[in-house]
């Protein structure tokens, strides 16, 4: 297995606040890695450092060996896609159009060819449409292609976000709390979906609060507390680690007294 993503000493400061503090993390190809931690631990900030939204104050991120470009559009082109903690679809566009926007970096369309409706335009459009429909089928939204995105159910919108992210043919998919607000059944379906994504050859880095989800899916788990990485290891080991329990629940009474 080769290393896909390597974050080395990533630090993000906002003025005096250190939101992410010297975090090292690797994701290998074919892996599902979990990122957990209490609220405000810096998980999403760390994600933003991996997608070019923030440029880390210190440290570096390498993807497939190359330094991450500092602009989100170029990061997507390099092969990292993401979903959001709060759904951020293009609500006024159709479900299929949303996925086709996700395809943006993988298509070329000469402006002149588009104006003249040349063969290249038609080929590009057809290809985007085919890939889009295939991905909607994959996430279970096959019958909803023409609906407006805002009319999808909550779970449907989450799955559409995943389809849109996959449309850019990523090597690594970042999921920011994919099951937030879902009922247990939707959560199980999302679990299966993430497994299927890995089987397509896409590595996944996932922020999640649902422990069962993490335990079932992840090959490795890293725990972020107050911006620093506290523990990293196999899910079972991490769950049993007293430091992790302490970070979430506070220290047992007798020790703090």
């Amino acid at each position: 297995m080769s290393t896909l993503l390597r974050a080395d000493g990533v630090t993000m400061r906002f003025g005096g606040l250190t939101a992410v503090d010297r975090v090292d993390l690797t994701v290998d190809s074919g892996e599902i890695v979990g990122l957990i931690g209490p609220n405000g631990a810096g998980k999403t900030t760390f994600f933003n450092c991996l997608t070019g939204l923030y440029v880390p104050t210190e440290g570096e991120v390498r993807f497939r060996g190359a330094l991450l470009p500092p602009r989100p559009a170029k990061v997507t082109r390099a092969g990292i896609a993401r979903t959001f903690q709060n759904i951020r679809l293009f609500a006024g566009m159709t479900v299929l159009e949303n996925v086709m926007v996700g395809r943006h970096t993988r298509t070329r369309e000469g402006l002149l060819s588009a104006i003249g409706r040349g063969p290249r335009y038609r080929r590009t459009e057809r290809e985007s449409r085919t890939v889009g429909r295939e991905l909607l089928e994959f996430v279970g939204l096959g019958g909803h292609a023409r609906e407006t995105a805002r009319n999808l159910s909550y779970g449907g919108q989450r799955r559409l976000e995943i389809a849109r992210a996959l449309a850019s043919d990523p090597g690594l998919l970042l999921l920011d709390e994919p099951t937030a607000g879902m009922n247990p059944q939707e959560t199980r379906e999302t679990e299966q979906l993430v497994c299927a994504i890995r089987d397509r050859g896409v590595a996944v880095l996932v922020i999640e609060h649902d422990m069962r989800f993490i335990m079932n899916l992840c090959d490795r788990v890293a725990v972020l507390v107050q911006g620093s990485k506290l523990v990293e290891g196999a899910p079972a080991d991490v769950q049993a680690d007293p430091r992790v329990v302490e970070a979430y629940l506070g220290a047992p009474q007798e020790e703090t007294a």
Partner: protein
Amino acid sequence: MTATELTQLLADGLILGSMYGLIAVGYTMVYGILQIINFAHGEIYMLGGFGALFVYAWVPGLRAIPLWAALPVLLVVAVAVSVAAATGAERFAYRPLRGAPRLAPLISAIGLSLFLQQVVFNFFTLPGSSMGVTAPVPFPQFETAPLDLAGVQVSVAGLLTLALAAFGMVALTWFVRRTRTGRAMQATAQDPATARLMGIDTDRIIVIAFAIGAALAAVACVTQGLRLGTVSYNMGFITGLKGFTAAVLGGIGNIQGAMAGGVVLGLAESLASGALPHIDALAMFSGSVWKDVWAFVILIVVLLIRPQGLFGERVADRA
């Protein structure tokens, strides 16, 4: 007032309105993406007309052939000049102010407006004259007599305005809805940050929005020159304001609404100057001197009753 007279007023209003609509699209596209009002758009419009006039005046071959044959050249040059000015404005007057308070690009736009007017005023000269264009300058005219459609007179330039506006809107609608770049534009308008994360180069999309608006404005200015017979360095001020009004009427950010708003405004102006004289109580507020008053009265009334514009949606899904 006879039915023919009324139809004449409606036809005139439709022609004037579709020209306003062409200008309004530029305001609405830039607003839809950047939430700024490009108040220099009126000057971008004016520059298109002067670009066309300039080649017509200085390239002898063009005057030797019939105007309809020279027209494609005039249009292409007009579009090129306006697009160059608009993309330049975006690069040097707006982009550096991205993220600045809303007021900053507005002031930048006003400065740019005056700058562009003065550039034309001072440096543009016609053959045989060393003076700047301090007064309105004649624009080439079609010699053909107006067409008589069942008693309604429509000039060739008027028909051309309608045809170009219709073509422009169909092409633009298709572009926005059916092409990759158009989809990227919609995505950028709805959520620029997410659009960037989807790999869309939003800076490029913004430039394209400015360019499309400028191209349509340039076409509008050429048709205006053909219809009225003159262009002037300050023509962009009031016409630009009308275009902006049309965009607001149609619901700013809504491309089809902009054209519809333009037509509503054109019809209102035409009826105000032509139909009101026949209504005794309002006769004293009628005639062409009052048409601008009525245009802006309509704007104010619409803003009071339907602030989102006639065809705008309530802004709900911008978060």
